């Protein structure tokens, strides 16, 4: 059930270089599914005009959380919202996916947000997680507490997430793999893991107008013509989509 509502922020705190916003929404856990996202904007403002797509980070009985990386004006303004202030929220949006009990998650940077949410449904599995520096590696302990084996790497020391994947390539054999991170990372990983995994899925980003399948602006080229990230995604089988 997708709705558009004005909801209060109840918490705003830093998490590494990111902002964690908690938004009050009683009953949201009943209809927010794995893989889904919301469109969020500052209430009553016409500029920024568009709402911004953000993945669920976590969902419980009376609230949900978002993890925001400042990219431009929209995310900067959202990360300054104070508890007690209100946001426009459209969602849940996108197709729900089957998380699978185990599997391999590969995260680059802020790509951790939807994968952390996905791990809520998982029992074990492995997280391969790369970031720029140590401060950017967030939620590692929480993922371990959920039973995942977490392996990390930073560009400061060690290399990129692709290096980490190569080191651990044997783990991917015959597994279901989920990737979320920058386009360049997805492109390189595609080559590296091609012959190993059973199935690979990727969380994609696109500039969105409506977020709900109305405007046809979030098109992505697939083997079956254009599909829409907000409606058919945001999670796609990696071999189906053209990246970049």
């Amino acid at each position, binding site marked *: *059930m*997708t*709705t*558009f509502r004005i909801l209060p922020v109840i918490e705003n705190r830093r998490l590494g270089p990111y902002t964690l916003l908690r938004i009050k929404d009683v009953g949201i856990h009943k209809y927010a599914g794995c893989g889904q996202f919301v469109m969020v*904007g500052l209430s009553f403002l*016409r*500029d*920024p*005009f*568009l*709402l911004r797509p953000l993945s669920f980070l976590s969902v419980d009985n009376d609230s949900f959380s978002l993890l925001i990386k400042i990219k431009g004006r*929209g995310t900067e303004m959202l990360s300054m919202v104070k508890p007690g202030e209100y946001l*426009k929220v*459209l969602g849940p949006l996108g197709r729900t996916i089957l998380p699978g009990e185990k599997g391999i998650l590969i995260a680059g940077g802020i790509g951790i947000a939807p994968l952390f949410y996905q791990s809520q449904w998982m029992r074990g599995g492995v997280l391969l997680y790369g970031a720029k520096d140590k401060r950017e590696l967030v939620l590692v302990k929480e993922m371990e507490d959920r039973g995942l084996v977490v392996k990390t790497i930073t560009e400061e020391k060690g290399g990129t997430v692709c290096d980490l994947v190569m080191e651990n390539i044997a783990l991917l054999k015959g597994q279901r793999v989920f990737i979320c991170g920058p386009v360049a990372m997805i492109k390189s990983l595609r080559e590296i893991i091609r012959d190993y995994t059973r199935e690979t899925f990727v969380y994609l980003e*696109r*500039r*969105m*107008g*409506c977020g*709900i*399948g*109305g*405007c*046809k*602006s*979030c*098109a*992505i*080229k697939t083997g079956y*013509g*254009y599909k829409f990230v907000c*409606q058919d995604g945001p999670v796609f089988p990696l071999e189906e989509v053209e990246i970049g």
Partner: protein
Amino acid sequence: MADLSVSFTGIELKNPVMLASGVWDLPYTELIDFEKLGGIVYKSISLSSREGNPPPRLTEIPCGVINSIGLANKGIENFNKEILPQLKDLGTEVFVSIFGESIEEFAELTSRITDVSGIEVNISCPNVKEGGLLFGADPDIAYNVTKAVCSNTDLPVIVKLTPEAVDIVKVALSVKEAGASAITASNTFQGLVIDIETHKPIFRRITGGVSGPAIRPLSLYKAYQITRAVDIPVIGSGGITDWMDALEYFFVGVSAIEVGSAIFNNPLAPIEIIDNINRYMDENEYKNILEMKGEVNEERC
């Protein structure tokens, strides 16, 4: 209670607020109570399916958006079979927008449309066969398109003009002459955005159509010029996001309005506009939309 219904040239709406073409599709039925809307204009349909432009297709500008969707649609056959039956169940007046690459295509498309409350003719698209100039840029070509559509249907024909016409009033006069029942004023303005990293236009097709609050005064002026010069009903479109924007359009004399990009910022905007126009009319003792229309006071020194 004020009477919000409007009726003009074969078109009857329970209120004067419509959803504009191209910004919405069926998933919005989950969000908006369509029964409350005066009417809906479905996105522009062509004879055969078109996949649309390569991404990116849309980006934000100050107070608005710019799009290069490329009129993606699945063609008239799919519309008649799959979409129209669902639209007919929504409890509001259904209009379909059409476009073609040639005048012959407009004519054929028109002959395949039945069972709607009217046709909106999108002449803001390029005349591919004759060198790519917008059909709506030239009064003579606009006349020919309108004539071709009107002679192939008994349905009300609304012609949606492009603000890119050198003289939009001349185009308005000629589509009226050709038999249009009403005019929508107007479509998006052409604009350009450059990616400062690549030094290239962000869209592959270079330009895009600008919409949203950013264009409201520009579009309103087009509507104003047309209502003054042409005596067929005008439907206002361009930058309407709330009831006050809508009133500006009514005061220059439009008969109805279309809400477009505003739904990206607030999907409930069309409903809030209807409720607030209702409240405004009650508070100011307007009994119907006609009383409120065209009240603009032009005495200025």
